[in-house]
């Protein structure tokens, strides 16, 4: 079960070269600044841009193998595509937009339940409206539902939230998270927003100037010290855990993850719920002894794995191992020298802020 994509595209002044093997389930994020080739790569996967010499295999089915002269045009690929702007058909009502793809799938080929998709994306109140009378967030929800109704074997999303303001984004993200939990098919999600990637992705592909810098599971890839430089202030790790305890008196919740546990603000989630927490490198400081008399709630024993330079000459990055889980800390080089930090050293990681991201 996997997605194999090999594409090379060259325009004057621009080239994309990708050779990827992505998991056949879950969300793979293509992450990078604009111009890094992530949208072009997605268009190649969809067949909207034809890459000479391209190869694409989706869970065992070959959709493109130019070496053998095989190229399925987009309308013959079992995929769903959500564009940056919803691209609904303005002459059709929401209902008929949704039906557009649904009707074109033979009943025997349908593997989704129509009512379920409509319910999942909250379509009921919108059905009779025209796209012109929808908010940006509603339009994008319709576009997602419309794509899902074609029973895709692969779902592609090209920065579906980037045209929306913050409030609309928060409105859509829960729907995307539900999709993430429910979908049996791979979802390739293009984004340049680290917070979206942290919330949704299982697998992370980092692109820059048309080249793949990294491709791997989210947590491991985020903990690589050669990448956070490019993430700047957003450098940090995402850990998966579950709600283990809720402290009603202090409105806190304990999240247990592979390497220990963390106290976070209680967001009202039930015990046992699987959650993700995001810890930014700038919120992690290091101490040689376990401090007493500090306001910091979360202190974990850690081992230094690797030290690296950060973008600014005053700063350094440290990758830590916390009971098997990775953490990244950003500190000054002076602190590295003062504490005489070296790989293998055992110390305490003090975590100032932990964000619970659903």
């Amino acid at each position: 079960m996997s997605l194999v994509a090999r594409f090379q595209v060259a325009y004057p002044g621009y080239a994309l070269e990708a050779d990827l093997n992505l998991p056949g389930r879950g969300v793979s994020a293509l992450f990078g600044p604009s111009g890094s080739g992530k949208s072009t790569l997605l268009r190649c996967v969809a067949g909207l841009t034809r890459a000479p010499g391209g190869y694409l295999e989706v869970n065992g089915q070959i959709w493109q193998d130019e070496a053998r002269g095989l190229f399925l045009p987009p309308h013959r690929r079992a995929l769903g595509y959500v564009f940056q702007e919803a691209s609904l058909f303005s002459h059709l009502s929401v209902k008929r937009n949704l039906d557009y793809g649904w009707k074109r799938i033979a009943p025997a080929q349908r593997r989704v339940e129509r009512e379920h998709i409509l319910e999942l994306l909250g379509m009921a109140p919108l059905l009779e409206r025209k796209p012109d009378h929808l908010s940006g967030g509603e339009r994008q929800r319709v576009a997602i539902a419309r794509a899902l109704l074609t029973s895709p074997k692969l779902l592609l999303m090209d920065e579906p939230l980037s045209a929306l303001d913050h409030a609309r984004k928060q409105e859509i993200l829960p729907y995307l998270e539900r999709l993430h939990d429910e979908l049996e098919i791979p979802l390739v999600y293009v984004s340049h927003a680290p917070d979206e990637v942290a919330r949704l992705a299982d697998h992370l592909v980092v692109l820059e100037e048309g080249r793949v810098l990294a491709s791997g599971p989210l947590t491991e890839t985020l903990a690589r010290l050669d990448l956070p430089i490019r993430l700047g202030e957003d450098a940090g790790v995402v850990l998966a855990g579950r709600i283990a305890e809720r402290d009603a008196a202090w409105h806190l919740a304990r999240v247990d993850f592979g390497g220990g546990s963390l106290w976070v603000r209680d967001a009202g989630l039930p015990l046992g719920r699987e959650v993700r927490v995001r810890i930014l490198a700038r919120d992690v400081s290091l101490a040689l002894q376990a401090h007493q008399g500090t306001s910091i709630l979360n202190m974990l024993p850690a081992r230094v794995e690797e030290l690296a330079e950060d973008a600014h000459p005053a700063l350094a990055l440290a990758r830590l191992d916390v009971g098997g889980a990775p953490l990244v800390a950003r500190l000054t080089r002076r602190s590295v020298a003062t504490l005489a930090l070296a790989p293998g050293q055992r110390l305490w990681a003090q975590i100032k802020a932990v964000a619970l991201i659903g």
Partner: protein
Amino acid sequence: MVGQPELLALWVTLKLASLTTVLLLLIGTPIAWWLARTRSGLKGLVGAVVALPLVLPPTVLGFYLLLAMGPAGPIGHLTDALGLGTLPFTFAGLVVASTFYSLPFVVQPLQNAFQAIGERPLEAAATLRAAPLDAFFSVALPLARPGYLTAAVLGFAHTVGEFGVVLMIGGDIPGQTRVLSVLIYDQVEAGAYARAHWLAAGLVVFAFLVLLALYRFNPARQER
């Protein structure tokens, strides 16, 4: 007042304009679609040929069409070989000539409409399993509706207004090729100004109403 000759000419005119408009929409659609989407180097050439009737004197166009459709011309040879006779001085000949004459008035609004739609709705249709022809009929055509309205109205009105080409190709045969504009010319020649007024004023009102309708009911420009 309005009598038999006027009604006959009105009937020929309406028949000619309607037939020509239908033909133009059928022929103009693929040409406009191609012009709107091609990256071929021939685009400029084809575009210029289509636009020629905009700048050519109608008599020039009529003259060459007459030669082409006559017994010695290529179209004449073809129609002869098909057993249709030759086209000049027949209603069919007028339809063919009008189609050439009004072509840019239909192709250009359609081309603009197709260009305004852009690539995205068709890409969206493709990712929803619509084959190219399916996407054309289910997405491009409905989205280009304002363009079709403009094209049909302009094509029809322009055909109603033609004179030079009709005179060169069709002559002045009552019930066959005598259209309103030619009849007005005849009446003025004969000094029957009062009768000419009825028709001339009628055409002015018609032209005004057509343009008014076009500006009032065509929201295409405002939306984009």
